């Protein structure tokens, strides 16, 4: 009988201790961010999908020389690029750079092997689409759109 009441007492006490801790939480600053309405600043080091770096000094506004190093080294095989020979221009001119982001695992191999540092990570983290093709990015068009 005595044991019975002792158990009720310890149980009640432990309940109160827990309640006190949760009660204290009411007076602490709110940590939850209401995501679609509020946003946290994203770290500049965040690695989103790769982009071609815009370089105003180059005539094509990017540094890609179509050497296909990234395409060859990519472990997932998600890069497809094409360069073509144009008259009066030294080297190859990039005509297409496709990134299949559905396959990319963001390992960063392409950025590391690039001999001209033409690739970098974007800060984009909101990728929404209804079709698979929505994630087939055209990096060349992206870099040309940038102003």
């Amino acid at each position, binding site marked *: 009988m005595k044991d019975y009441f002792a158990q009720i007492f*310890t*149980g009640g006490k*432990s*309940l109160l*201790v*827990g309640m006190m*801790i*949760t009660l204290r*939480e009411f007076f602490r600053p709110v*940590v939850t961010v209401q995501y679609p309405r509020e946003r946290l600043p994203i*770290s500049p*080091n*965040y*690695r989103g999908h790769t982009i071609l770096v815009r370089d105003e000094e180059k005539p094509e506004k990017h540094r890609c020389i179509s050497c296909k190093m990234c395409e060859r*080294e990519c*472990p*997932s095989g998600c890069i497809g690029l094409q360069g073509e020979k144009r008259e009066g221009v030294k080297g190859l001119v990039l005509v297409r750079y496709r990134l299949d982001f559905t396959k990319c*695992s*963001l*390992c*960063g*191999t392409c950025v*590391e092997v690039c001999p001209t540092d033409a690739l970098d*990570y974007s800060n984009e983290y909101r990728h929404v689409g209804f079709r698979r093709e929505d994630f087939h990015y055209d990096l060349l068009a992206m870099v040309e759109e940038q102003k």
Partner: protein
Amino acid sequence: MSTTPEFREHRYVLNMGPQHPSTHGVLRVILEMEGEYVMDPQPVLGYGHRMHEKMAESRSWPGFLPNAARMDYLASLIYNHGYVGVVERLAGIEATPRAEYIRVITSELNRLQSHLLWLGVLVLDLGAFTPIMYTFEDREKILDILEDVTGSRLTYCYMRVGGVVRDIDDKFIERTREYIKWQRSRMPMYDKLVTGNIIFRKRVEGIGEFTPDLARRYGLTGPVLRGTGVAYDIRRAEPYSVYPDFDFEIPTETGGDCLAAYLVRVREIEQSLRILEQALDRLPEGPFLAKVPKKIKLPAGDATYAVESPRGELVYHLTADGSEVPYRMKIRVPSFSNLSILPEVCRGMLLSDLCACMGSLDLVIPEIDR
């Protein structure tokens, strides 16, 4: 399925998972029940099988780096560490001292966030919702720190052969120190809220007990083994990286039950904080990436590298035939062995205790299936 004929009419089969909230992923357990008691639990694996070992054999070795992080999503950096470790050992490359320190610091942060998540979900499995909110608040701080240096929040691909991708800066060190202080101030709260809670204790005390002998027979490692009183930790038993430089304890408990595994992990949080503190104090200057040739051919032969993941012993065994593509890669994951004890330990247990037992094993299913 082993059903003794005379009791068959009382028994029924209950399917748990593969999408059950307390199986943490896609583990399916077929339970042979007698009333509320589990008589024969049989885990069914393979729902998350992605043939990682085969993938390692079919591409040149750097291509496996992102895969290493995707086996155990809670200890990506430690899996990274193990993989670059085995390649370095085979190719005879040494990482720079600064890189080794950075690896230890980030690995320990990774271990901390894994333990914090585990603490939250174990208690969640037992029916208490509040603590996971608090552990996620702490965990978020670690993820922010790691995001700033590695660029991602969960599946890091941070380590490279010879070093790491990006150097840590003063901001990182300052934030980590702040975090250590914060986490220390939070531990007494968890002690009161979870460890001291009478309902929690009644749910885990004496549940799923096993002896060191049984643990050895099933190849159990990590906190589950240390909960039976065996101080076996790869960081001590087979020191790798710069772990011998640090002063830390291997926490053990003697109970061998769910509570012991819980207490070991909570005490490990404190030890990880200690390692972090020492590593930050002694961080050497120098390059963060050693000068390595652009293309590394793996010399013929094999190498083994073991690391301590938050769940136990993780071993990479790499066999190469002189080309860039590994001939065979064997990965020994801790959760697989830890799960194998389930049918032995959980026989005759209440169904709700089975959830506690699986929670204390800290299973990560993609790691088991690979």
